[in-house]
């Protein structure tokens, strides 16, 4: 079986936001929406810190769909629009999505965004990879693990564009893959483990 996942090195992430915009471009994400956000741990503002001055630490945490093994979104989707595909990715069938947004309420990671209106784009035209479907008003959307790229032997755009090579993509079911070895050898964890969604996105340092 193939089970695609991602591992992110939090020591290397410098909070540059290249991945956030690279994803937006690749996937033709409309104005006012992001599939991938870069948070500063413990702070509501970017470049914040944890602790009390001067004893501070700062960690940037990029967050997008965690492609969970036990997805909360899939569980609540009334139409089956949200599904786990044959490569372990959580995907949305836009033809089946009725825009109820139960998935958005269920997702502990706030990974999804919604097309409330006719999607607008700051450029006035569609951008990015023409293989990516253009979503209509009234459907939800989120990180697809760059399905169109990874189906074609390419890596997700965020992985390719990260200037510090903080991201690793690969098959979690292959024990010899770089990602599997990383997770085995480093103290890699997941976000909000207590929610029980069993993310396929790991974080380590």
């Amino acid at each position, binding site marked *: 079986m193939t089970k695609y996942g991602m591992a992110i*090195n939090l*020591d290397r992430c410098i909070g540059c936001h290249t991945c*956030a915009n690279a994803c937006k471009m690749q996937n033709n994400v409309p104005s006012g929406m992001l599939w991938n956000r870069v948070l500063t741990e413990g*702070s*509501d503002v*970017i470049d914040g*810190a944890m602790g009390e001055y001067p004893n501070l630490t700062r960690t940037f945490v990029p967050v997008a769909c965690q492609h969970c093994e036990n997805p909360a979104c899939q569980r609540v989707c009334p139409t089956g629009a949200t599904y786990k595909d044959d490569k372990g990715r959580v995907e949305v069938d836009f033809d089946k999505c009725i825009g109820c947004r139960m998935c958005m309420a269920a997702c502990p990671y706030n990974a999804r965004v919604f097309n409330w209106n006719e999607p607008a784009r*700051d450029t006035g035209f569609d951008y990015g990879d023409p293989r990516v479907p253009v979503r209509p008003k009234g459907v939800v959307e989120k990180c697809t693990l760059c399905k169109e790229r990874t189906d074609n032997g390419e890596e997700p755009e965020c992985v390719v564009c990260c200037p*510090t090579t903080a991201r690793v993509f690969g098959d979690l079911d292959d024990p010899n893959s770089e990602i599997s070895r990383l997770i085995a050898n480093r103290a890699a964890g997941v976000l909000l483990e207590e929610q029980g969604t069993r993310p396929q996105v790991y974080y380590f340092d």
Partner: protein
Amino acid sequence: MRSAFNHILLAEKCIDPLFESKPDFEVQRLILESVGLDQYLPENAEEYVRFQLENSEDPMLEGITLEKLAENHCSMPLPGTEEPRIGYADRQFKTPTGRMEVYYEDMTPVEQALPTWVENSEAYEGNPLAEKYPLQLTQTRTRFFVHSHFRAAKWLQQFYTPYLEMNPADLADRGIQDGDTVEIFNDRGSFKAPVRANAAIRPGSSRIYEAAWSKHVVEGNFQNVTNNRLSDRHEYLLTGAPISFNDTLVEVKKA
């Protein structure tokens, strides 16, 4: 290691680094270590130089080794060099005196013949003005823009719009909440912006990312408060008076 016209020079250590300063190469190593990529750099400067000499295909480096350089007092002519380059053979220098200057003769009236540290004119310990305006305002760079460039880019505005940042303790002292619109003011003027709580800001100071366009600021312009004092040495400086943006004291109140 340097190329000096028709010679190659090995830069020797002159003094040990002072205080916490470090040679460039050590800084590079430390940065790469912090992101786990230091295995791609040579271990030390000597290894780096040795690698450059031994792996170069440049015929100009034929026969030049680290050992030979060291034996030759760290300077060797490149192959085929007959005469070493002699700079300033006519002893005419492009200085105000026409002579080689080991200090700035013309800056002695302002006591900067050699670079001399001078206390801040406003943000200094013990300034009585701090009773009225206790917060230092700093305008610092942000990764999202290059000074005032790219400010209109919608995809960058996604990540940052102008706001002041203060330590949560300083906000609490003033009864200001994270997200409130505040007025930042002193005797020179004021501007308004939202304020955000940020534990990384040193108490007693405030930070705003520099060079926002006025139209993106709630009211006014950051420079309405900026220290406008010109130091007495400015007329001697090649590029004129520097603006001491961060040598500025302000107070902040809810707008």
